[in-house]
């Protein structure tokens, strides 16, 4: 899955900073029909988790109301420089992951 993540170049120790992620995904709602009248199976990214050096710091549960190619922005704090890992999974079981380093300054 194509995804793009951004964090600020440097963040201040303990101060909230924003994490932004855009994921390429069809986010099929499950409410649409094909030309033969059959329901197109629901397939959305249902869970996104952010871990900082292995500790869960953010979790999102998404559903059919989220548009395709979802874009999320959330704020976390970091006590020290480390690795932020975002992972997500959709209804079909396909998972995605992105890692981005965070540089903390005082």
């Amino acid at each position, binding site marked *: 899955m*194509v995804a*793009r993540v951004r964090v600020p170049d440097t963040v201040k120790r303990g101060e909230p900073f924003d994490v932004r992620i*855009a994921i*390429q995904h*069809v986010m099929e709602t499950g409410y649409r029909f094909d030309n033969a009248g059959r329901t197109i199976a629901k397939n959305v990214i249902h869970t996104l988790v952010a871990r900082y050096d292995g500790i869960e710091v953010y979790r999102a549960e998404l559903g059919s109301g989220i548009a*395709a190619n979802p*874009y999320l922005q959330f704020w976390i704090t970091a006590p020290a420089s480390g690795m932020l890992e975002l992972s997500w999974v959709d209804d079909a079981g396909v998972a995605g992951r992105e890692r981005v380093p965070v540089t903390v300054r005082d």
Partner: protein
Amino acid sequence: MLAAVMAAVLASAGCTAGDADGARAIAPQARPQPLQQGSAFMPPSLRAMQADELENPGMLWVARGSKLWQQAEGTDVRSCASCHGAVQSMRGAATRYPQVDRASGRLLNLEARIMQCRVERQKAPPLAWESEPLLALGAYVAFQSQGLPMRPSVEGAARPFFERGRERYHLRVGQMNLSCSQCHDASWGRQLGPETISQGHGTGYPVYRLEWQGAGSLQRRLRSCLSGVRAEMFPYGAEEHLELELYLAWRAEGLALEAPGVRR
């Protein structure tokens, strides 16, 4: 419902001479004044989405394109990079399309050129029109020309294509009997239902369209317009579309490319 609104709004605005309801007088080959790119007709929230490098969903296709650029394909196992080197060599390329292919004499838009490279030079299986890899590569290459002015050539071999494109632009078609000119020359800036009619330049393509919940080419958008006036859409790759794209590129000359654009 949109169809009924269109018919009502344009019933009296169809005439190209200046008339009482404020429709703009347009000389047959004049360009809109002042020339404005499509994003100028978007609401501020969409302009901001387009301008933000991460929020712009079209950038996901650019990102995918950057991977494909390096991917070796075909019996010759060549990637785009094998011949073209760094993608920065593509700077300015998108501003010169559509153009006539010297070898075959065919008119090619950017997507068609990529398809041709893939088959003839990479010796790889063809990419279908509007396929995800083609859109990704098109977005990646067009992105290299972001901010550069459109500069297509309509002289020499391109001239007959350009003239047919210009004729088609002014041709009334479809159940609604409308030409491109009637909306995009005579009625730009006016409302069509909830939408503000743009000048129809197509400089924001490949585009991320909210209605499609995905990316698409200018050709797809032209087909949508034809469908919108209840005219028969030509098949993908039809010369009718490409000629029109050439005319639009000429008409947009000087406007900066803003791919990937974000539109409704």
